[in-house]
């Protein structure tokens, strides 16, 4: 910038009448001369941001529609809120809820562990292992879950006994029905299909880890297992967790299919009760909806904190959690730390307070190093 302006100036002194005279004269004029007196007077006042009236109209329209619907919740007796209250914590519903929770939790844990194993097999150099893993994923991603469940339910008629033994040698056999209870069938069915999806999620996560990390772990001579558990997996988790939790939410809802293998989960209980109490069909559906909402919200909260944990090291400072935000707001409200003289900008204060909370233990790092 300085070079380009200086060069013509220097030239202008030597070749004065070459039409370059406006150049130095403009430079000598004060910049502020381009605005008039009124403009100068307004410099002290804040710039008025653009208004968006259409946004307000659109928001109002949507709100009116929403309120219309909310009104029907109160006026339409068919919602049957007293019945909802009656069923929400009824023992039958709670038993179903417990089964949904148990089946989902067991399947989620099994499918994650199984997913890691299948992903490792799929990533291995061994063509037989990786081929088998590919085949497994292909099979269980192709077959609908309900088919898997019903198939397992009828396994007893396909293989009346199951066991293990040396092919064509001695065998150890037990009746299928003795080993596989209904819950076991349900959990195995859910897991078989979830493992297929989970393994792809884990594989994608492992592939997303920078190759240099594998090399560094190898160069340090870390044993294979430690390379994976200590270096690769923790970094892969960052992309695995959101996708896997998404999968768990799907699993939570897919567990309603257990109804078809005679397991009374939340949905199954509600279905059963509605045939016994036909007048309460709508309230019972509302009860199931409420519980599924509660469960999904709980999963989302867990996800939020697990994601924060896996993000350590990948961002310099984590944003504050909602709790930390509230705490920071309360602290501001109570007046502590607000005695900053000449600080009229409250928003900025709020932001900096939030940042202090956010940086937490990492706040020992000063700005110069970053």
């Amino acid at each position, binding site marked *: 910038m300085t070079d380009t302006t200086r060069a013509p100036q220097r030239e202008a002194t030597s070749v004065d009448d070459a039409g370059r005279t406006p150049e130095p004269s403009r430079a000598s004029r004060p910049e502020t001369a381009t605005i008039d007196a009124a403009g100068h007077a307004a410099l002290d006042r804040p710039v008025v941001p653009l208004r968006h009236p259409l946004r307000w109209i659109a928001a109002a329209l949507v709100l009116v529609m929403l309120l219309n619907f909310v009104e029907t919740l109160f006026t339409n007796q068919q919602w049957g809120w007293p019945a909802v209250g009656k069923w929400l914590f009824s023992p039958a519903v709670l038993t179903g809820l417990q089964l949904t929770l148990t089946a989902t939790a067991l399947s989620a844990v099994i499918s994650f562990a199984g997913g890691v194993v299948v992903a490792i097999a799929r990533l291995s150099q061994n063509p037989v292992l990786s081929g088998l893993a590919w085949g497994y994923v292909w099979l269980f991603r192709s077959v609908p879950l309900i088919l898997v469940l019903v198939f397992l339910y009828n396994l007893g008629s396909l293989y009346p006994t199951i066991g293990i033994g040396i092919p064509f040698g001695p065998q150890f056999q037990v009746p299928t029905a003795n080993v596989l209870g209904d819950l076991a069938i349900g959990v195995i069915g859910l897991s078989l299909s979830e493992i297929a999806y989970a393994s792809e999620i884990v594989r994608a996560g492992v592939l997303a880890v920078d190759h240099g990390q594998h090399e560094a772990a190898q*160069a340090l001579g870390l*044993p294979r297992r430690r390379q994976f558990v200590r270096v690769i997996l923790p970094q892969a988790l960052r992309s695995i967790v959101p996708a896997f939790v998404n999968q768990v939410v799907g699993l939570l809802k897919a567990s309603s299919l257990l109804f078809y293998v005679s397991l009374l989960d939340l949905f199954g209980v509600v279905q059963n009760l509605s045939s016994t109490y036909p007048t309460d069909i709508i309230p019972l559906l509302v009860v199931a909806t409420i519980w599924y909402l509660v469960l999904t919200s709980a999963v989302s909260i867990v996800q939020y904190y697990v994601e924060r944990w896996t993000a350590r090291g990948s961002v310099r400072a984590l944003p504050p959690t909602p709790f930390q935000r509230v705490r920071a707001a309360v602290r501001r409200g109570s007046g502590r730390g607000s005695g900053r003289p000449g600080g009229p900008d409250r928003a900025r204060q709020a932001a900096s307070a939030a940042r202090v909370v956010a940086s937490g233990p990492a706040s020992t790092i000063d700005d110069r190093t970053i």
Partner: protein
Amino acid sequence: MSAAISIHGAVKAFGDTVVVDGVDLSLPSGSVTVVLGPSGSGKSTLLRAINHLEPLDRGVVTVGGETIGVRLRTGRDGVPRWKELPERHILRQRSRIGFVFQHFNLFPHLTALENVAEGPIAAGVSRAVARDRAAALLERVGLGDRGDTRPRQLSGGQQQRVAIARALALEPSVVLLDEPTSALDPELVGEVLGVIRGLADTGTTLVIVTHEIAFAREVADHVVFLDHGRVVEQGPPAQVLDHPQHTRTRDFLSRVR
């Protein structure tokens, strides 16, 4: 003095491209060797072959008299062949060779101290001893107060110094450095070169792939110029850098300077 590192008939190809094409080198214990060469000359591949990160197609590398990654086996036909070792042997051998990467490759989810302590802990050193040793190493590279910091919160120069500390944690007799300053902002190069200079003074055998000619002249005992996977010229820096015999070396040096 015995050779700390010797390379015999090293050949490595990626597909049809021969990257290392018959390299023989002998580097004495305690020496500082700088490997120079245009990009694609095979210098990084050669360096990575030394700790078997890049297995050779032919040839063998010894470090401290021990062949790395392979052992001689006579087959049923009575013909001796170099055969790859089981992985855990190779991993154990690697733990005795430090390696510093161009892009640091620190573990981002671990603190600086955990990064440095990881190798020794994996090798069976007790957690407390490993952490003490790691703290001392961080002190040595001038980052004693940064132990609890994660890599992303450090500057590039600081990260590379942590990486050097990590490479030293297993007390290797040999440290390999692959373009340790190429990914750094110019004003951060000096601090890393300073640490390497200090390392050279302690008698650790160093092999450095770098483009810092001035640094090579100052710190190296031996300069190797590589082109198209072959050693074109080698010798003391005064000879190779100031009086290169080969036109290819001269061309390269005139372009780099």
